[in-house]
Every structure is written in C-alpha cells, then in structure tokens.
C-alpha cells in the first residue's frame, strides 16, 4: 500500500494558521504513507495536475487530500484521481479548513496538532478503503407535479414540452391557484386571469400532461427514479366526460354557500365551479353542503336540470397508481388567518380585510364585479387604510420573515382603489418599502406621487370600531406624531405561510422543511430548487414567499433539473450503500426495523437459514443498520465499521498495534 498525502495551503486560509511544513513532515512518517507534500491551491488546475502526476510517478494506491470541506471539492478531486486510473473511493478528504484553521485561528500550535490528528485519521480510514463502482438503477422518465398554481403549471408545461409525461395533481376543483384570484398584477397591471387562463388551457390540452384536479397525493413510496405514487381522485358527483359546464345545475341548486375562491365574500351554490374560467370546466357537488347525504337523496333539482345527465350521486373516490422518476413540489402558500391579528381587528370587524380578500373586491370577476364594497353593508368605502407587515417581520406572530410581495401588492391595491373610487382616500402604514425587482421601485414611486396615496412610516397599534367607522391608531415615525384615522375599511397585508398539509406531504416524501414549514432547498444559493431528498424539486411559494416572476423562474428551473435527470436512460447512484456480511448476519432483523427507507428485508432460505438483504436502490447509506447490528453483519460501503474504528483510534492517538 502506497498512500500519498497532499496538503493544501488554500492561500492563507490554511497556511496562515497551521504549520504546513510540520504537517508534511509528520504525515510522511505515518504508516503506509509513501509520499507527503503541500501545494498553495490544490483545487487549481496545476494543483490537480501535481496530484495526478505524483499518483502516476510514485504508483500511489490511496490518496489523502488535506484541504477544505469535502462538500466543497470532493467531486473535483475525485474526478482528478479518476482521470489517472485511481478509484475515487480510494481518496479521502481531511477537512483542515472549516474544521480546523478557520475555527482555531487564535491558537495556531494546537490547531496544527489537531490538523495532524485529522490527517492521521483520514490516512487510517483510507488504508482500509476498497474500490467501489457506482450502481445503476432504472429510471422512470415521468414526473409528478403536486400543485396546480402558476408554479405547478409552469413546471408541468416546461417538462411536457421537453417530451416527457407529466402527472399534475391539484387539490381544488380547478387549476389556477392563488394567481387566478388576483385582479391585476404588479408592476405592469396585466390582468391576472388574462395571462394565466391561456396557460391553464394549455395544460389541459397538452398531450403529455395527465391532469388530476380535485385529487390528492395519498401515498408515495420508493426513491428517485422509481417512485410509486397513489393519487386519490375525490368524487365530483358530476361526470367530467358528460358535463358541458353550462351551469344549469347551479341555477337549479337551492343551497347557498360562501365561495372559497372569493375568500368567502361572495356566494356559490352547493354544485359549483370556483370561477367561470375554471379548468377543467366541470361542476362539482360539495357534499358537505348539498342537501343530499351519502345515505339519502332528498333533492334532485340539479339532476333534473342537467341536460346531458352528468349528475351521479353514487360516485365513489377512486385510487390511481402511477410510477414516476421525479417529483416537483409546488404546493404554494396560505395567508396567516385574520383571526391571528386581533389587535388590528382581524376576524372581529367585518370591514377588516386580508390582501387576498381585497383582491377579490377589485377583480372584475369577483363578487362585486370589481366595485369595491364593504362586506358589512355593501357601501363603497371612501377612506381605506392599508397596513403592511401584518404578521410578517413579527416574531410574536411566528413570522419573523418578510413576506416579500406585500409592499408591491399594497401599492397596487392603493392604485387600483383610487382608480375604482376616484374621490376616495388611501393611507398606507409601512415599516419600509421593499421594492426590489425590475420596475418595482418606479411603480411604488408612481403610486406615491401620481396617485396621491399617503404613505405613513410607522406601525399601527390598534384598530377599533366607532359607530360604523374603523378607527386606526398609529404613529408616523417621520414626523414623530401619533395618528388617528377614521376609515371605512382596513386592509391587512397578512403574512404568507406555507399552505396547509405542506408538512404532511414533506414528511411523506422525506423532504426537509424549515422552522416555519416552508420546504428547504439543498443550498440557498447554488441549489435553490432541489430538495435534499434526491429526485424532489421545489417550485414557488412552498419554498419561501415569492412573487409571480420569481415563481415562474423557479418553476422553469425545477423543470430544467428534471429534464437534466431525464436526459439519461438509467440512473447512476453513489455506491455508498449497506452491504450484508453473510458470515456474520444471523437474521435477527433489528436492522429491518430501524431502516428509515424500508431498504432491508429478511430472507428465509429453504434450509431455514435466515439473513437480511439490502435493496441498493432504496438504501441511502445512512448507517442506522450498521449502528444497530449486534454482530457486525452489515456495513456501509466506504464507511465500514473497520474504517470508522480505525479513524476513531487514530483520533484518540492510540497506537495502531494496540
């Protein structure tokens, strides 16, 4: 065995603290080390050439590179050694930057000792390493997109246009998500429906997209390349193949229900489409409010009104099994409930609205046809106060983050309100105005100056009712004055929170979420659309609050990642997987219970002999099995018990002969 040790200076990052000369000298003395050297930047082209040259020249069999974190350059060095014929699993990285020089810059001598221990441990580990080859698993080149808002729509269209099959699952009866609820979009004031509905129709007509609306993902099993997904199609009680969307059923229906799509400000019938441009344009009977129950059909007015006889009260939920290779999560957002903002009268006074509710009042397809009216008495409000950061940037409400879109949509609301009610007054309370985006700042300036909206820098302390007015107590921190405004309506820019069930779905997919429940990306800068669960990609506000342009960009990025994955026929996986040592395994099956990925099964041979078996494709190499096994009967390749033991012994400075 001939181990080569290469120690990187990383400019002054490492060499500025550690005594490199001593490290080289000591490393050269270690058992089986044939060569030790140092270089100013090993990751540079000449640095990599130096490593390659020495491997060839000195016939090195194993390599230790003492440098930065393996997260940074393990792949770089693995490629370099592979190019000269050394198996990349015979390379070990000793992290003497993040775990040594950076954190111990005030104690260089001790740090040098520690670096030496780290190198010694790496040498001990690599000396027991065996060459490994990547394993290939089959890849189902189809994708599941969860969520039919603009994020899911964009991702589905991009992947479908790339030539792969897409299953798009949406929980509500129609595609469109929150974007379909918006009136106009900032900063261009494009009508939201006008730009969204053509996309929705494109999804429904696309030959590569299988659309499931009013459906939910019930179960997901397997790993990247081969997920088995169960979708539950909820019964609409209306046959989608027969329904023409004429609406005769809704006209005949006697039951009035607040329409969720209008945020409860308008009414719908118990048989309904959420909005007239819904895709698919198929009516749905809401059994919770319909006079009929599962056991008794009382009212048949929709049935008699329906020309094509599409109503079927006996429909049952259906389960659909599909196989996909990757999943895009585009589950979107909800708003912090108004009831959480009692100090602003949220949930107490009828004329304290959320941003999305005000959006429905402004919308031409909304319950008032675009005329701004108060939900309490239907009167047109002449003075409206907008309160930004309602819940956002406020640790007390559990949302210390900025919801990102509120500054812009509040400016848009104020502008649209002034256009709808030219003699009305609009006031905006803000902490700061965050208008970072193309033409965003210009838009806010236009609202402030041309539309004569009064912007007050400060927070509101209280909103309360006085006769039929809402009194807003706040402070203008620029003038230092307390402010009291008697308003007809108050609009709260409530904080954005992850949509409900995001956490359940994330748990099902083993995709990590952050402390607020948003889906976590692998790396905030360099891998923003990938989940650390391989094969799971993120798009839209499910990852963090974001506006439509950002959502669409991210959805296209997620789609391009999926297309990249699908560019190969088979999937190549790292060989760091559990391996069973049949000599030691007695089939006690403790490992079967602890495996978080259901990758281990118990096999009973015909002669009664028992042992476990690992499904390599499912194994993630976590090592729970190895830690549990009482017999040393299972090992993770590349991290065997012997390797870890050798590493720990070396760290504890025990003599290898002991």
């Amino acid at each position, binding site marked *: 065995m001939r181990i080569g040790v290469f120690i990187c200076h990383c400019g002054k990052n490492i060499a500025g603290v550690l005594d490199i000369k001593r490290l080289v000298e000591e490393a050269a003395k270690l058992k089986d080390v044939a060569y030790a050297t140092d270089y100013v930047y090993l990751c540079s082209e000449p640095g990599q050439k130096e490593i390659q040259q020495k491997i060839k020249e000195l016939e090195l069999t194993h390599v230790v590179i003492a440098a930065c974190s393996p997260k940074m350059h393990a792949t770089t060095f693995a490629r370099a050694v592979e190019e000269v014929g050394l198996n990349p699993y015979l390379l070990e990285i000793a992290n003497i930057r993040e775990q040594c020089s950076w954190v111990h810059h005030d104690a260089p001598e001790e740090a040098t000792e520690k670096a030496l221990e780290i190198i010694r441990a790496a040498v001990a580990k690599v000396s027991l390493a065996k060459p490994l080859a990547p394993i290939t698993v089959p890849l189902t080149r189809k994708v599941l997109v969860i969520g039919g808002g603009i994020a899911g729509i964009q991702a589905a269209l991009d992947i479908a246009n790339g030539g792969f099959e897409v299953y798009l699952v949406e929980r509500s009866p129609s595609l469109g998500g929150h974007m379909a609820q918006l009136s106009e979009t900032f900063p261009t004031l494009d009508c939201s429906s006008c730009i969204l509905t053509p996309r929705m129709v494109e999804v429904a007509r696309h030959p590569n997209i299988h659309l499931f609306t009013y459906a939910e993902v019930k179960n997901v099993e397997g790993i990247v390349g081969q997920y088995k997904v169960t979708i539950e199609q909820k019964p609409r009680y209306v046959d989608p193949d027969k329904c023409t969307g004429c609406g005769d059923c809704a*006209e*005949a*229906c*006697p*039951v*009035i229900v*607040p329409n969720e799509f*209008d945020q*409860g*400000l*308008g*009414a719908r*019938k118990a048989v309904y489409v959420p909005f007239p441009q819904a895709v698919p344009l198929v009516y749905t009977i809401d059994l919770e409010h319909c*006079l009929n129950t599962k056991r*008794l059909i*009382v*009212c*048949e*007015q929709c049935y008699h009104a329906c020309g094509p006889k599409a109503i079927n009260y006996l429909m049952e939920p259906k389960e659909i099994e599909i196989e996909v290779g990757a999943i895009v999560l585009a589950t979107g957002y909800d708003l912090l409930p108004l009831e959480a903002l009692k100090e602003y009268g949220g949930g*107490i*006074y*009828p004329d304290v609205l959320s941003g999305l509710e005000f959006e429905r*009042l402004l919308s031409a397809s909304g*319950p*008032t046809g675009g005329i701004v*009216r108060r*939900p*309490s*008495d*239907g009167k047109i409000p002449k003075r409206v106060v907008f309160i930004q950061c309602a819940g956002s940037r406020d640790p007390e409400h559990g949302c210390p983050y900025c919801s990102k879109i509120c500054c812009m949509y509040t400016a848009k609301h104020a502008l649209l309100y002034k256009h709808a009610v030219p003699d009305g007054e609009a006031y905006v309370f803000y902490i700061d105005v965050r208008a970072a985006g193309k033409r965003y700042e210009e838009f806010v300036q236009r609202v402030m100056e041309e539309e004569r909206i009064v912007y007050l820098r400060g927070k509101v302390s209280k909103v309360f*009712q006085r006769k*039929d007015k809402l009194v807003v107590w706040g402070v203008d921190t620029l003038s230092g004055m307390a402010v009291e405004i008697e308003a007809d309506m108050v609009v709260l820019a409530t904080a954005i929170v992850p949509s409900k069930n995001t956490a359940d779905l994330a748990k099902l997919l083993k995709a990590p979420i952050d402390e607020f429940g948003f889906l976590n990306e692998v790396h905030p800068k360099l891998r923003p659309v990938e989940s650390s669960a391989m094969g799971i990609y993120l798009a839209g506000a499910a990852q963090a609050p974001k506006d439509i342009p950002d959502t669409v960009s991210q959805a296209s990025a997620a789609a391009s990642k999926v297309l990249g994955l699908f560019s190969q026929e088979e999937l190549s996986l790292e060989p760091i997987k559990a391996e069973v040592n049949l000599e030691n395994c007695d089939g006690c099956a403790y490992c079967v219970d602890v495996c978080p990925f259901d990758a281990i099964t118990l096999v009973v041979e015909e002669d009664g002999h028992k042992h476990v078996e690992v499904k390599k494709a499912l194994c993630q190499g976590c090592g729970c099995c190895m830690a549990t096994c009482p017999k040393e009967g299972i090992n993770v390749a590349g991290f065997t018990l012997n390797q870890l033991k050798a590493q720990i012994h070396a760290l504890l400075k025990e003599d290898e002969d002991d």
Partner: protein
Amino acid sequence: MIKKRMLLNLDKLKIPKGKPIVFAERCKGCGLCIEYCPKQVLSFSDDYNEKGYHYPVIPPEKEGECIRCGFCRQVCPDFAIYVEDEN
C-alpha cells in the same frame, strides 16, 4: 353592535322557491314529510283534519323558505302534498 359580513353577490344568485300545497283531508298524520324536509319548513297543525289527524302546515316564520326539492311529495304515502313553483 358589530355587524356580520354579508355575501356580496347574493342578488345575482337565483334560488328556487316553491310552495307546498297540502290536501289536509287526505293526510293521516304520519309526519314523513315533516321529518324529511331538508329545510324544516313543515310542522304539524294545531287543529285536526276530518279524519282526526294533525296535518303539515307552514308556520308564518317559515313562509318562503321552501326550495322546491319536492321530497315531501315523494315520501307522502297518501299523495296529500305537492309543491308549486314560485319562481
């Protein structure tokens, strides 16, 4: 007093309206129509029909609440009730 929110598009929605017509003399007071009316529009009369039964009536406070589903007609064993279209 704090007002509740109203549904702002209620005037645009058409709701079917009906009026139950009772043939009191045919009724035997079984009460099926009262039991099954989904809007609980019907209740027993105070007086008796000629057979000596209480028959269904619409109390004044329920006037106009019938939604014309016609289930009372369907369940009545004696063809003693039907609904007229009020729209």
